[in-house]
């Protein structure tokens, strides 16, 4: 036992040595270091100019605001991935959790005078309850039916907000609740980055532990999971509650920053719900890392497009005017080229380039314990298969 513990410790220390990491993780660590150092880099002479150039805004201050907003969106995408990417139960209305978290926290702060640091916890708690309310029905209704439920739930909430607009502010939202860390560009950026990292580490660790492989096994075949003596119900509810709580945390913290406010269009519109799915699928469904990257990309692409001062000749419209249209087109292309997500494609490419292709050795569960090249068993294909089964049954298919 002690022998086992020592070797575990040695293994852990070895894993934490950045030089011993695989290439893709080195890139990740470098990227994180860059994000952390960003506010300092802008004041340097030459590097600073370069950093300002790559930020998604015309000045570095606005760039940090936009990046902070993108980090929040990355958290939304990760929270979606934790449940839908891993268990294959697609939620079309994750905005429900962002809105419950954001509105609860805003109302506790504005109506009851609670400090935003406390009211955020209230938002997380209520969003976790919302996770139970979607997770428990998810045990009986699955696949396309569950997706319909998740699609309708935020629409109902939106109608409630509109009918009771004296309480919820209707389409306009709730105005401006108190900020967690004031209006500072740097402080708000670090708030967003800190939360982003915390959420990322939590979900990354959880999905790389046995819990992650049980969740992906549920996506693949629920019968096989219960035959292994594991309760699929327990793990599915857990995934929904976890996802709801994290989505709620992101939504709650978001409304207490200068970059976000508690309005339906920012937290629960159909566009938000769809963009979250696009972000996670585009980055790489069922990987957390992919959802985080996809979230940043999806949030920042329109910002970048807004910067382009080019007018398309024939139709006489500027690029910034059609940024959402172009965003949709780019996304559509990327989804067609990389159906398993950009991350899986990148890892596979890197493995080929560094000559560590396959070899069949037992590596660390780097991408949720799956071979990235296995096209037939990627999460999108698995989920499609899952849905196909429900449709077959709907039209009177035989039990197999």
């Amino acid at each position: 036992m002690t022998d086992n513990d020592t070797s575990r410790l040695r293994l852990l220390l070895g894993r934490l040595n950045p030089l011993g990491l695989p290439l893709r993780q080195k890139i990740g660590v470098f990227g994180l270091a860059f994000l952390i150092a960003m506010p300092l880099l802008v004041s340097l002479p030459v590097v600073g100019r370069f950093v300002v150039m790559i930020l998604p805004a015309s000045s570095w201050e606005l760039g940090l605001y936009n990046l902070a907003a993108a980090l929040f969106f990355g958290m939304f995408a990760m929270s979606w991935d934790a449940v839908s990417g891993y268990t294959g139960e697609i939620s079309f209305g994750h905005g429900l959790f962002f809105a419950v978290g954001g509105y609860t926290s805003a109302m506790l702060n504005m109506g009851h005078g609670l400090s935003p640091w406390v009211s955020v916890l209230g938002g997380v708690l209520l969003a976790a309850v919302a996770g139970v309310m979607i997770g428990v029905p998810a045990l009986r209704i699955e696949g396309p039916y569950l997706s319909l439920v998740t699609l309708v739930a935020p629409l109902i909430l939106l109608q409630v907000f509109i009918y009771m607009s004296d309480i919820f502010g209707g389409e306009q939202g709730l105005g401006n609740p108190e900020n967690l860390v004031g209006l500072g560009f740097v402080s708000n950026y670090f708030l967003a980055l800190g939360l982003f990292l915390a959420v990322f580490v939590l979900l990354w660790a959880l999905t790389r532990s046995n819990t992650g492989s049980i969740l992906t096994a549920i996506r693949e075949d629920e019968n096989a999971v219960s035959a292994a003596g594991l309760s699929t119900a327990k793990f599915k509810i857990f995934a929904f509650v976890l996802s709801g709580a994290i989505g709620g945390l992101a939504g709650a913290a978001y409304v207490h920053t200068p970059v976000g406010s508690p309005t339906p269009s920012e937290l629960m519109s159909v566009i938000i719900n769809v963009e979250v799915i696009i972000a996670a699928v585009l980055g790489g469904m069922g990987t957390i890392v992919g959802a985080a990257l996809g979230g940043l990309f999806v949030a920042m692409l329109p910002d970048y497009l807004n910067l382009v001062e080019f007018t398309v000749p024939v139709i006489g419209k500027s690029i910034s005017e059609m940024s959402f249209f172009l965003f949709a087109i780019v996304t559509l292309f990327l989804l067609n080229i990389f159906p398993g997500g950009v991350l899986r494609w990148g890892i596979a490419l890197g493995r080929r380039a560094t000559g560590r292709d396959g070899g069949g050795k037992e590596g660390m569960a780097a991408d949720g314990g799956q071979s990235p090249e296995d096209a037939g068993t990627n999460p999108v294909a698995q989920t499609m298969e899952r849905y196909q089964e429900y449709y077959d049954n709907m039209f009177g298919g035989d039990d197999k």
Partner: protein
Amino acid sequence: MSADAATDELATATTAEDVRPDDGILAVESLRKEFGGLVAVDDLSFAVQEQEILGFIGPNGAGKSTTFNCVTGTYPPTAGTVWYKGEQVTGTPPHKMVKRGMARTFQSFAPLEDRTVLKNVALSMMNDTLVTVEGLLGEFHDEARAICERVGLDDRLYQTPAELPHAGMLRLELGRALGTDPDLLLVDEPFAGLSGPEVESVSDLLLDLRDEGMTLVVVDHNMRGLLQLIDRAIVINFGSLLANGSPDEIKNNPDVQEAYLGGGLE
């Protein structure tokens, strides 16, 4: 030696149609399963003794799999009672039955196609805890590897189920079941599609498991290979008990021969 005595005792117990909870490690009384108007299992009673290998035989559609599914909790039975290790477990969901020590293999293999043989087996060894650091450090797969070796898959640890031959899939099914550390193993049609030597090596594995203290119930509609393996057989037809006894008794039983119309008894 004691197994024979227990077998004789059991033969009287089951024919008397009143099975008691402590009649064996698994006791089933008047189990009934109806699908709409169809009676798939018709008041079936039997008991399984600890450490025996029981053959559960019947022609196609006799209700073997349905009986299995009712015992393991996949379907709730329409009526009847199931006792396992002396406890009433009727209608307990499958994952709880597995935790109590009853594992099964699937006739239509159900491995997880998205991961390697080793990870398939490792899944069945995982604890039911939600938050864990286990598996985070690249995993100590030693125990799963030992099971793979046990079932003869040690040279295929990193292949996916799709790469396995038919016999390999069966071995993987056994490996996944063994990963749950069962006391009673229900094996569904292990010999279908296996060659002679493969049947022999799987039989040897099952005999070894029994010698280590496991109880086995082997379901098959084909008696080839099965009669050499088992201590005792239960034959069912149209969902009810047709015969019960030693392999020789079963082979010479006229009712059984008729049910099979001479087929499968060579």
